[in-house]
């Protein structure tokens, strides 16, 4: 039922990356893969998160993928606790249906999108992106989603809209981490309008060909691969187009540590640690961090003439 609408779209059966392929890529032995697949299918049948999605891979990367297990069990999602493995254990309290995303502000047609309608509104692309955390670890994730630009076009931004502000759900009953003052809640993020319209900027609804698990920011999150991970806000309920640079959570907490732009930049050191290197999950030794996380060709032009030491 979920896939009917796609029968006329560009995605064909042959384009769909087989689930098993992922597990093979992880280099796991067959027995482990089989036992890992079973609970996934059971959950999918129950209609919970992790439901298979029909996606078409539009962007690959020669770097090896980080395993599904690691991607879903190493999460900075402070709404569910500050320990990396905590969200996987505790995010079950988040209810992702019904869910709506309000898109308004300086737009011609403000709208409230139902999440299921939104997931059907655009063909889902699979894009393999590097994901670099400001804490100097990184992963490679096959996201499933659609360009943020496609969504924004639907609401017809006014020419006065210069920035896009994002907001995570604010509900301490569903997000117990919001009861402690680690950060000011709700989590908010922002992009400049040209960053938001850049074709790399993705609204992700899944990863590894399945809907997002709660700990990864279900049901819908932002993915901005050339910026530190904290820019990629999770479990979004509201998107506003505005004329002034909106406040962003980590910048509000530590303006000297986290800038609004937060572009991955090996030559600008964080006050607590160097950003010159990063460790891929599972690697022993760190590797060199690339400017703009390796996406410079596509995004460096957005910042021409800006002093990136000042606008970190």
């Amino acid at each position, binding site marked *: 039922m979920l896939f009917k609408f796609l029968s006329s779209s560009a995605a064909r059966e042959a384009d769909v990356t087989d689930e098993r392929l992922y597990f093979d890529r992880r280099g796991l032995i067959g027995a482990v893969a089989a036992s890992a697949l079973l609970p996934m299918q059971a959950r999918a049948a129950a209609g919970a998160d992790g439901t298979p999605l029909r996606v078409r891979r539009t962007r690959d990367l020669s770097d090896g993928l980080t*395993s599904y*297990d*690691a991607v879903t*069990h*190493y999460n900075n999602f*402070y709404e569910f606790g*500050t320990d*990396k*493995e905590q969200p996987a254990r505790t995010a079950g309290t988040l209810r992702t249906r019904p869910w709506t995303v309000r898109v308004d502000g300086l737009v011609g047609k403000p709208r409230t999108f139902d999440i299921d309608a939104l997931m059907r509104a655009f063909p889902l692309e699979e894009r393999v992106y590097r994901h670099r955390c400001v*804490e100097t*670890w990184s992963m490679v994730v096959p996201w499933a989603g659609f360009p943020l630009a496609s969504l924004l076009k639907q609401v017809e931004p006014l020419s006065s809209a210069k920035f896009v502000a994002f907001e995570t759900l604010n509900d301490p009953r569903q997000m117990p981490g919001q009861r*402690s*003052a*680690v*950060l000011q809640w709700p989590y908010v993020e922002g992009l400049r309008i040209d960053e938001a319209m850049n074709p790399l900027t993705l609204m992700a609804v899944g990863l590894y060909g399945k809907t997002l698990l709660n700990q990864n920011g279900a049901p819908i999150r932002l993915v901005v691969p050339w910026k530190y991970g904290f820019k990629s806000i999770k479990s979004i309920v509201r998107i506003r187009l505005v004329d002034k640079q909106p406040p962003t959570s*980590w910048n509000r*907490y530590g303006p000297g540590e986290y800038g609004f732009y937060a572009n991955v930049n090996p030559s600008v*050191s964080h*006050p*607590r*640690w*160097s950003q010159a290197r990063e*460790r891929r*999950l*599972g*690697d*022993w*030794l*760190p590797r060199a961090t690339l400017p703009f996380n390796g996406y410079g060709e596509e995004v460096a032009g957005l910042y021409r003439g800006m002093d990136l030491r000042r606008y970190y």
Partner: protein
Amino acid sequence: MARRLKPAVLRGLRVGVHLAMAVPLALLLWRWIDMILGTDPRQAGLSAEPVAYTINYLGLWALRGLWASLAVTPLRRLTGMVDLGLLRRPLGLWSFAYAILHFGVYFGLDQLASPVLLWRDVVEHKFAFFGMAALLLLTPLAVTSTRAMIRRLGARRWQWLHRLVYPAAILASVHFILRVKGFQWEPWIYATVVALLLAARVRVRR
């Protein structure tokens, strides 16, 4: 009134101290062996990022060892059991062992065993500076922990030198506070315990 412990009890306590401090290390080693033999790092209990997990784990046990060694004197005064003082050396040495391993993994795997990278990290980042300073303060204490060194230095000078553990514990606590993002209780709880143990000392001395 100074009370003495029966030699058997004292021996039992010493074994207990060694066990309590050795078991976490043995557990960590066992997990690493498990991982190297092919178990997924998370299944082996090392999280999806085993290196960061190991550095944090070793650092936390170094701090806990510092707590324990700092707790000996207040406990001794409280109970009047002078022999408890004999537990201080093994606790201090275990704490130092964890601190050295903590540094070693960070130096080897984070800083690629490069003195240049290490130096840069320490001078550019307060977080690394405080940790390094704590370790440097603890090093002479470990070196002079033998009976022969106590004799050579003389009890008075030796005792003076070993008060370096107080600033070391404070620096290590700050190092932990600087480690975390956002407001989190855990490092402040660790620092509070250190503060209480130091405060207990001040009161007892009066």
